[in-house]
């Protein structure tokens, strides 16, 4: 019998020799690079930035912590330096449709000039208009018009009075009107004397009064027309004076912005509006005059809001006066309004109102002409944010409206700002699940995010890549302002990286974990008063991370050591084996042994997986059990029915079990039970099995080995303890130092196993045996014993069947 040889120490851990590094500390490294191992993603990002067509936005996908955002940002920033400063945008009042403010585009940095020009203009207009209205010319002309009106009025009334005097009548003023009274010698005739007048005289007086009343009525009826004419003449005088005052000032602004059509037509509208509302520029002309409460409140409200000049303000929403390159923006709270922009409202006289000065830009506008980075998960979890983003990108414009407006649910007064054309490169950053989910579920997604930058989590470990890795570490040290790292520390990080990814031939590119480790090691170095971070500090950091995480692991270990959970680590038992499983708690994983037992009896050829029967087993576990029952039948009973009933169980397992990594262990337990050959309990087993009896690779091999080792160590290493692992997993080994020490001193062994036969020989100490041409195994071999038992069971089965018939 040639048993499998345990692995020698060099297979268990791939060290990194600090001597391969041509430096003492990372300070000496000049070529520092922060991006390694991501050629595919880098290519995609560069392509995404370079291509200008619509829809070629980037989705950076990959696991958390590989540095997606910082890599995307780095490329965006580099490109933004080359790109021109984008346009400024401002919103101005639309004098024709007040609810639809106009957007005006200006070259970057000119927006603020326009804004200031308008501010100055309003200030100057106030002075200019006030002086126009205070000028002698205006006063004289106004008085002239008013006098003319008065003269006209006077003339008519004097005419009436003259006519009255001719008839010995006088016009008297009553509280509500005018009346005629007969006079004598310029005095009104007292009523008693009127009574004495002859009837002819009275009739004459009455007729005269009648006539004059008609004349007076006619005159009074013309008053409103005169007043109307007066008002209209005063209005045109006001307009004329304002035009003169305003023209020059507005022309100066117009000259400055003559190249911009939109500003020219805006200024025309401003001029017309100022002329129309010139009286508003005259400060408090109605102050001190008694007025209605409503008018006073209106004046107060107007003043509180910046007054009537609000309409001439410029709301500079995008200002690039301090920019030197295109913007690169990361929106960390991509709620709908932060993304698209919003129109704020203010309370006025108890109602919510708004205007163009309350338009606030979102990050899409801020990044317009540049680059915007968003966290895909956050965008998807904020209501309407994803819809809003898609609408903006599909239509290549930003239309600022509230979500309720978007859904036609608006109930307060609002405005519809003119949409602004959008030219922005968006990078969504998210995990692979989200990318594939969106790609499958949202047809727009594939139209809008055509560039997938797929980030790796690992890279090959070779002398060249290790050198690059050292440069990466140096870059991280600089970025986080850490103490210089000695080359032995760098070597230790390289080893950690392989262990982190669970593969001695690979290195992890999960930048977050590496950066965390470096920072923690730096902390310990500082605590220890060291100026340079050494391997010991890295080790201390690794152990401290483990210690903080492994409370549950220790409790579970304790239940086994105290034999609450029964796991044997010595002796031999039929149908009982130590399998190994891995528990993942957040980012921390650890292995633990589980006891699997198998029992057989006469039956109909079923292998009952008790985990599956009670629905504690997952599909992969069930698959493993079905494979092994197929292996059993085809190998040992190809010609006769399999007449056994076998049951398999994970003892003391109270939660779900999934994965097929225990299928080899289950097969060993089954073979042991059939052949009644005891299994060494000092060994634990991991690996899956196929229908040909080959042992296949599994995940978490390091954690599994360490899990069993810790139990054995706690009980005292006997020297014959060890773990059977699939041969294919040897390259993944990056075991802990204490395991390595135990192996080196011969107290613990790792056996790489290729087939079930190799494994069962190790476990039972009995030769597996090879079948002859007829398919029969030697009777003394383990396979022979299995075969004999199965044939025996088949015969018993047939007998039983005959008896039943």
């Amino acid at each position, binding site marked *: 019998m040639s048993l499998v040889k345990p692995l020698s120490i060099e297979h268990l851990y791939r060290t990194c020799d600090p001597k391969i590094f041509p430096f003492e500390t990372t300070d000496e490294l000049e070529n520092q690079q922060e991006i390694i191992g991501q050629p595919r993603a880098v290519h995609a990002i560069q392509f995404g930035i370079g291509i200008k067509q619509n829809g070629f936005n980037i989705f950076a996908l990959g696991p958390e912590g590989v540095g997606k955002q910082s890599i995307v940002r780095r490329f965006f920033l580099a490109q933004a330096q080359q790109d021109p400063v984008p346009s400024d945008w401002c919103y101005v009042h639309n004098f024709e449709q007040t609810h639809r403010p106009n957007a005006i585009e200006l070259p970057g940095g000119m927006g603020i000039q326009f804004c200031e020009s308008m501010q100055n203009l309003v200030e100057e207009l106030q002075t200019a208009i006030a002086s126009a209205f205070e000028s002698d010319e205006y006063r004289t002309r106004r008085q002239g018009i008013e*006098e003319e009106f*008065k*003269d006209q*009025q*006077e003339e008519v*009334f004097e005419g009436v009075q003259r006519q009255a005097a001719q008839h010995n009548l*006088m016009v*008297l*003023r*009553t*509280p*509500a*009107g*005018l*009346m*005629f*009274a*007969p006079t004598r010698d310029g*005095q*009104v*005739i*007292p*009523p008693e004397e*009127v009574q004495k007048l002859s009837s002819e005289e*009275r009739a004459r*007086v*009455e007729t005269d*009064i009648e006539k004059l*009343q008609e004349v*007076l*009525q006619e005159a*009074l*009826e013309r*008053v409103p027309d005169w007043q109307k004419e007066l008002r209209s003449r005063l209005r045109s005088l006001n307009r004329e004076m304002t035009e003169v005052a305003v023209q020059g000032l507005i022309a100066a602004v117009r000259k400055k912005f003559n190249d911009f059509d939109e500003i020219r037509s805006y200024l025309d509208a401003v001029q017309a509006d100022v002329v129309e509302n010139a009286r508003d520029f005259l400060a408090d002309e109605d102050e001190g005059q008694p007025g209605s409460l409503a008018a006073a409140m209106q004046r107060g409200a107007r003043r509180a809001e910046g007054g009537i000049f609000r309409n001439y303000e410029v709301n500079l929403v995008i200002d690039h006066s301090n920019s030197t390159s295109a913007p690169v923006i990361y929106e960390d709270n991509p709620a709908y309004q932060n993304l698209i922009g919003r129109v704020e409202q203010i309370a006025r006289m108890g109602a919510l109102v708004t205007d163009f000065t309350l338009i606030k830009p979102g990050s899409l506008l801020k990044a317009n002409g540049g680059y915007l980075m968003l966290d895909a998960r956050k965008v998807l979890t904020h209501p309407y944010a994803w819809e809003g983003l898609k609408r903006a990108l599909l239509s290549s414009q930003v239309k600022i409206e509230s979500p309720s407006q978007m859904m036609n649910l608006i109930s307060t007064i609002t405005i519809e700002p003119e949409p602004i054309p959008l030219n922005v490169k968006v990078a969504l950053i998210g995990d692979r699940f989200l990318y594939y989910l969106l790609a499958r579920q949202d047809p727009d997604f594939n139209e809008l995010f055509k560039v997938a930058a797929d980030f790796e989590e690992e890279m090959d470990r070779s002398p060249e890549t290790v050198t690059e890795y050292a440069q990466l570490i140096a870059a991280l040290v600089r970025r986080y302002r850490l103490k210089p790292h000695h080359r032995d520390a760098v070597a230790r990080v390289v080893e950690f990286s392989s262990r982190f990814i669970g593969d001695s031939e690979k290195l992890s590119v999960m930048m977050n974990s590496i950066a965390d480790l470096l920072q923690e090691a730096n902390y310990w170095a500082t605590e220890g008063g060291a100026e340079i971070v050494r391997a010991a500090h890295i080790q201390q950091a690794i152990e401290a991370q483990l210690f903080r995480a492994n409370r549950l692991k220790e409790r579970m270990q304790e239940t086994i050591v105290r034999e609450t959970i029964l796991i044997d680590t010595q002796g031999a038992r039929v149908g009982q084996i130590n399998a190994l499983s891995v528990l993942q708690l957040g980012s921390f994983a650890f292995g633990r042994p589980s006891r699997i037992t198998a029992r057989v009896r006469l039956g109909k050829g079923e292998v009952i997986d008790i985990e599956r029967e009670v629905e504690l087993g997952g599909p992969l576990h069930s698959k493993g059990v079905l494979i092994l029952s197929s292996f059993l039948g085809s190998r040992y009973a190809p010609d006769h029915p399999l007449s056994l009933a076998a049951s398999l169980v994970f003892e003391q397992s109270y939660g779900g079990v999934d994965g097929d990594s225990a299928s080899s262990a289950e097969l060993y337990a089954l073979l042991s039970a059939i052949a009644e050959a005891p299994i060494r309990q000092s060994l634990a087993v991991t690996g899956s099995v196929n229908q040909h009896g080959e042992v296949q690779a599994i995940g978490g091999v390091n954690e599994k080995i360490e899990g069993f080792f810790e139990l054995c160590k706690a009980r005292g290493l006997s020297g014959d303890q060890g773990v059977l692992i699939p041969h294919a997993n040897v390259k993944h080994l990056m075991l802990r130092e204490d395991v390595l020490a135990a192996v080196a001193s011969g107290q613990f062994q790792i056996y790489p196993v290729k087939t079930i036969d190799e494994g069962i020989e190790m476990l039972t100490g009995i030769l597996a045996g090879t079948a002859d041409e007829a398919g029969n195994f030697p009777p003394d071999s383990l396979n022979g014993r299995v075969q004999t038992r199965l044939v025996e069971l088949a015969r018993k089965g047939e007998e039983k069947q005959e008896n039943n018939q």
Partner: protein
Amino acid sequence: MMNSATGGSIRRILVALDASPNSLTGLAAAAELASKLGAELVGVFVEDINLIHMSEAPFANQVGRFSARRRTMRPGQIEREIRAQAEWARQALQKTAERAELRWRFRVVRGSISAELIAATEDTDIIILGQTGWSDRRRLGSTAQAILTQASKLTLILRRDVQLGLAVMVIYDGSEPAKDALRLAGELALFERGKLIVLVIAEDSRARSALRAEVLEWTEPRNIPATFQWITAADPFMVCSIAKTEKSGVLVIPKDGPLLSDEAVLKILNDIDCPVLFVRQPRT
């Protein structure tokens, strides 16, 4: 040389009230003046006897000033309307006086408006009148004209939309009324903390210098800052235009002076923009 017939003796201010905007301006100016001089405010409302008589006549119709509609008067209607106006005027006076913390009196009399007002001036020191009558014309109303020619006291005539200003301008020709006018103008300038502009009417520069010396003799001991303007004749147009250039807040005119005829005074009143205060020698 100056007697004490005028200045410093304004203790009661008469304001004629008829509830029109003009009389309200008069009331505001009266209150301002009363407050400065510590004088009492006397409001008089005259029930126009002519109106009351006429309303009893069988053919009494009135034409609405705004509506231009003819309405027959019901018996007692005018009286009721006039009473309501009087009450309104009383309230306006009370409110104004209380706000300015003034002593005040209010009287309703019945009779001819100008005659009753002239009678009311007897126990007051100054009368304040709005300038216009029932239309918006600039010309002086008949009541104001009558008071101006007949009343023996100080008369302040206000245009509707003009208030008392800081600069006080006085016409000075060396006559006794002019001296009174100067004295009053000086006091007003002191109260207002404003300047005094003396418009000297003198035929030649020698006469002007003499008049100027007279004025200075009176103003300098009292620290009243005075500036001088000179015209050779009492030309209403010149007076108005100087008042305008000097931005005069009130023009003080000596009535009954030898150089200013009644006609000239009326012309000034019709053309000027600022309030005008007439100073008249008491008829004793």
